[in-house]
């Protein structure tokens, strides 16, 4: 087989396509004109604050809600009104929705029982799935309500896999777990995605979860997707203030274009060197956003494109990193540096902090 053909075969095709999809509940518009291609085999995470419409979006993919407007297609076929039971999708609920009167084994076997698979075969598959999800086989006969939070999570996943869907949908399944377990399961989920090769669509309001697991992240706000891209691109090049702030702490400087001094920050009383995006070429005002970890202590005023002076107000240890709050007049600025680079910045010490224009981004004012 020629390599060109190979490339074509490997190029990910959209498995689910949304074209201008709306969902209205009476007066309320939950999803407001979303167009999105979900690629076959990708791990797509939809993040957004509560009420941004992400759960409604997911329920439309699962077939539990029909769109009010627009089209959803699965491998090119319109599925707007195909009910959940006929779709090759499976939703892992926030509550997990495990059947409390059934054992772990019976829960996993449920979709197989629906398809009238003989009991012996069902059990074989259930044990296989238990192994795949790193649960002991002895759990087969265990009461599912006696399992711990993490184990329940795995049982719910095993049940979803037993259905053998093409697309797995996740509705914040980790949100109720403690931090440590969450960290473990995030990685397991990503490994499981790799092993199974299935398409995962995951929704969460947690930036951390999204960053760890996703191939692509879609950020939702007020029923719309405001930005979509790889975790790196969204983190490093947010297109709006909303996205920037949603993805961690930021320093914001309101800027105005001064006829004499050019772009100017009133907060720090200094001119600012910046790279203006095309969309803001003619603008007279803008907001400069710099993430704390792109800021550094400067030893000379010309070490970075921009350097401002201030005094250290406080320091916060973040484990492997340290954050400093520096007060530049009325304005407080956060700097975050790796512990290995940490310089002893005594409280109230006068310091210079700087950043390069390439590491900052400019959003509409």
């Amino acid at each position, binding site marked *: 087989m020629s390599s060109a053909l190979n490339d074509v075969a490997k190029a990910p095709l959209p498995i689910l396509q949304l074209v201008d999809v709306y969902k209205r509940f009476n007066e309320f518009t939950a999803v407001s004109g979303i167009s999105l291609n979900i690629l076959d085999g990708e791990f797509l995470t939809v993040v957004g604050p509560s009420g941004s419409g992400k759960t409604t979006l997911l329920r439309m993919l699962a077939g539990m809600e029909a769109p009010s407007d627009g089209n959803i297609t699965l491998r090119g076929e319109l599925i707007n009104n195909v009910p959940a039971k006929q779709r090759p999708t499976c939703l892992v*609920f926030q509550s997990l*929705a495990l059947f409390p009167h059934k054992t772990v084994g019976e829960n996993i076997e449920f979709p197989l029982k629906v*398809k009238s698979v003989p009991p012996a075969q069902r059990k074989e598959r259930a044990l296989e799935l238990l192994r795949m999800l790193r649960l002991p086989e002895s759990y087969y*006969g265990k*009461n599912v309500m006696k399992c711990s939070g993490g184990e329940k999570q795995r049982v719910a996943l095993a049940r979803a896999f037993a259905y053998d869907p093409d697309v797995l949908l996740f509705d914040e399944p980790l949100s109720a777990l403690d931090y440590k377990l969450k960290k473990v399961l995030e990685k397991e989920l990503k490994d499981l995605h790799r092993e199974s090769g299935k398409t995962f669509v995951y929704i969460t309001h947690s930036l951390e979860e999204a960053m760890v697991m996703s191939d692509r992240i879609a950020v939702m706000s007020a029923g719309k997707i405001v930005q979509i891209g790889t975790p790196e691109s969204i983190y490093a090049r947010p297109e709006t203030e909303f996205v920037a702030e949603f993805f961690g702490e930021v320093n914001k400087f309101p800027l105005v274009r001064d006829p004499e001094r050019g772009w100017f920050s009133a907060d720090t009383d200094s001119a600012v060197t910046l790279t203006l995006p095309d969309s803001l070429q003619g603008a007279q005002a803008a907001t400069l956003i710099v993430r704390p970890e792109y800021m550094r202590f400067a030893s000379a005023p010309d070490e970075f494109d921009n350097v401002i002076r201030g005094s250290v107000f406080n320091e916060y240890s973040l484990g492997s990193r340290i954050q400093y709050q520096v007060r530049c007049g009325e304005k407080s600025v956060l700097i975050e540096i790796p512990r290995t680079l940490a310089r002893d910045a005594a409280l109230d010490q006068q310091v210079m902090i700087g950043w390069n224009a390439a590491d900052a981004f400019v959003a509409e004012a």
Partner: protein
Amino acid sequence: MRTQAKIRSEFFIRSWAAFVLIAIYLPIVCSALAGLSKSRYFLFPVRQFSLDWWQRTLASLEVQTLVQNSITVALLVTLISVLLAFFGALAFARYEWKGRKLYQKLLLLPIFFPQAVLGLALLLWMNALGITPSWRTAVVAHLVWIVPVVTLVIAIQVYSYDATLEEAAIDLGAGRLFIFKEITLPLLWPGIWSGALFAFLLSWGNFPLSLYTAGADSTVPKWLYSKMVAGYTPMVPALGTMSTLSAASLLLLGGAVIAVIRRRRQK
């Protein structure tokens, strides 16, 4: 000091509990004793005990008919009321629909009706419709009062039932009937059992509705009353005691069944 106060308060709590229990059960014990007396008349304290009246009660053809009537009515009421109340409870507690609030209020209304008034109203209706009252009409009368109670009992179980389970089952490809059999029914079993138990016991012990609507047919409570009014015999307390004991054992049995269901679930 603290422990002394604690001992004292515990003593009061126990004495009060004992008093309440005695106040509730003493009259029942008294009537049980009356049935065990050798005497033809109700005398207290009992001078000589005997099982004569129990034997006569068990042998009496009249009593056998009564018990048969009561059991038939209670079983029919149980069956029909559970069937109606099960779906009624789903409409009451599970589904959102237009008019649900009104339905909930209308359904509960018969419970607050004095049963004597309800019985009279039903009798008037039957008269108007030209139906001769018998144990069959008593079944209908019992249902009017018992279906709401059973609906409430089952609705309590339905309220604690997570509807996402059904959504999850649909998502896993299951059809309505399969879900009903595999998810809905098993999860609501304890509620259905309690409802059935309530239905049977409430019908078994019901007097005012039977009095008005059973016509010439008699039930156990109706007979007990009529014999007290005229023609007392110690068979009255004897049958009363038997009736209480069988209701209590049924309750215990039902409780045991529910406990088994729960335990099997928690294995």
